[in-house]
């Protein structure tokens, strides 16, 4: 029997695969609700953001054009900008942080979980096109859509938010909650959540738990990144010059620098050394810091004077604002690589763990 089987003519041992472009229609038809809803909702939000942005930019240009700045009229404008406009800007900035999670989880979570939950995977994954092409095409098409939409929306948001980076003290492009809302990282994180969602859907096989797990994973990764990884990107510098990190050398270090620029770097850590370059002991540091102002009273000495007196140098590790774009690409890069790895793992799971 075996010999007969082998002797059979094999007219089409390797049939030409079903072309990739067919998946465009398939993906569009199957995911029309997602592919229509995301641009529609983001488009509507973009119009709102644009209108608000015009207002804020108008208020901002009126404010910086106001002379003399100490006049009552100008102070009223300043107060209005710092209160009304800033509360809008701050609220939207916080809401923006939810974008990658919501976009990614709701586009990615159901992608495979719906097929598994309803049993249609038995139809979809036994068609001639094969599971690999089917999965790769869907991940790429919808992934590009959500990441692209996220990038465009966050570009608009960056324009909207620009005045606050100049106006608000200590608000730098590197600040938590600001850095992640810029296009490169925003798009990358959205893509990551999307692929995590697809993978979770494949593993859990149910839509709602997959979405919840995805949101949990995103929260964990965000915390890890903001609290730990962000500080270890290889872009930080070290200085002992207080003015570089926005610490006034004439006033106490805890007072507001109020420099009014967005060029404040992001300070990661600070430490003290003695004259020989060895780390200062804690008791020595305490002595120095004891000279700092207490309970809001005027200090007798400035910090600089105190440091000089004890021959102690204060050092800062910081990230200058000029490193903003390298930072964006470092974070965008690793997040993108992780997304691709998870997408590859998802395709592998679809091929090997279907039933």
């Amino acid at each position, binding site marked *: 029997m075996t010999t007969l089987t082998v002797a*059979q003519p094999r007219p089409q041992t*390797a049939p030409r*695969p*079903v072309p990739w472009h067919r998946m465009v229609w398939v993906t569009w038809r199957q995911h029309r609700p997602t592919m229509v809803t995301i641009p529609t909702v983001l488009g509507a939000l973009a119009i709102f953001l644009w209108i608000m942005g015009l207002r804020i930019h108008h208020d901002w240009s009126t404010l910086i054009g106001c002379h003399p700045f100490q006049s009552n009229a100008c102070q009223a404008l300043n107060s209005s900008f710092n209160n009304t406009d800033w509360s809008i800007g701050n609220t939207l900035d916080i809401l923006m942080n939810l974008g990658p999670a919501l976009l990614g989880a709701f586009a990615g979570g159901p992608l495979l979980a719906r097929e598994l939950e309803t*049993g249609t995977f038995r139809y979809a994954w036994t*068609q*001639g096109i094969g599971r690999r092409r089917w999965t790769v095409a869907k991940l790429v098409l919808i992934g590009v859509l959500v990441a692209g939409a996220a990038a465009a929306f966050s570009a608009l948001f960056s324009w909207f938010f620009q005045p606050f980076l100049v106006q608000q003290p200590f608000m730098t492009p590197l600040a938590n909650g600001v850095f992640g809302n810029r296009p490169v990282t925003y798009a990358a994180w959205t893509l990551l959540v999307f692929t995590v969602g697809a993978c979770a859907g494949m593993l859990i096989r149910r839509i709602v738990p997959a979405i919840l797990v995805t949101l949990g994973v995103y929260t964990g990764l965000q915390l890890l990144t903001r609290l730990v990884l962000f500080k270890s990107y290889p872009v930080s510098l070290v200085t002992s010059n207080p003015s570089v990190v926005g610490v006034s050398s004439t006033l106490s270090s805890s007072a507001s620098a109020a420099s009014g620029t967005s060029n404040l770097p992001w300070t990661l850590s600070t430490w003290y050394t003695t004259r020989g370059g060895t780390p200062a002991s804690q008791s020595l540091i305490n002595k120095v810091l004891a000279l700092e102002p207490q309970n809001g009273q005027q200090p007798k000495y400035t910090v600089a004077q105190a440091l000089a007196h004890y021959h102690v140098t204060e050092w800062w590790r910081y990230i200058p604002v000029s490193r903003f774009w390298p930072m964006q690409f470092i974070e965008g890069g690793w997040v993108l690589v992780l997304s691709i790895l998870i997408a590859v793992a998802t395709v592998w799971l679809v091929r090997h763990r279907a*039933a």
Partner: protein
Amino acid sequence: MNLSIIETAGLGKRYGHSWALRDCTLDIPAGHLTALVGPNGAGKTTLMNMLVGLATPTAGTATLLGPETPGSSAALDGIAFVAQDSPVYKNLSVADMLHLTRNLNRTFDMGNARARLAGLKIPLKKKSGKLSGGQQAQLALTLALARRPQLLILDEPLAALDPLARQDFLSSVMTAMADDGVSVVLSSHALAELERVADYLVVLAEGEMRLAGVVEDLLAQHRILTGPSAEADVYTKRLSPVQVKRAGAQTHLLVRSDGPIGADWESAPVSLEELTLAYLRAPATRAIDKEAA
């Protein structure tokens, strides 16, 4: 017809610690309507999932359409599978399901599919989810047949259908076999409705294969011997019957043998249903093997 449409050797699938199917060796020639019969949990779906590439075997090998590996593009291309409950995208219209399936396959006979649906009075504009169970099964069958497969695998296609819809469904399958020469494998937990159409039988129970062969041959090889219970033990030893039924002084033995029998014994042909039930009820061969060893 020497081509093996399905050939398996020692095929098995284990989920966790329990085997859903083990040691399944089959060689089904092309051109048959194969009935895969067994109670729920016998391993029918597991076997089908491995054949269509949805599940990877834990043990053994399987080839389809001659040399093809399950799940390979050549195999996917030549096989159409309709899973249990005929899954279709409920939010897509019938017309969309046609386009979807056409886009997902190299071959799709749109004209034929439309004509079949028109013949069945299934409206193209209707959402698939709004169709009746019978119509949904017919839609799934239409989509599968339009791919012009060499092998059609249907998992419990009749379970959800009323008797009339079953009749219609089976006649559609038979027509496709006659017209296009499609080989069909059809699973069911009830043999009754397949008895008239199936010409190849595979009986599965408790994750193992009990019987496989061309129906005609199986019926010819088996017979029921009826004779005095006093002599039954001799025959039981010699012929190792599939089933022994004692009814007072008389004993019925279902045997796979054409050996000589005593004058007191009568031999009668067996029906397909009796045969199937006997093999389903027979103790697991694995247990017998163990005892023998």
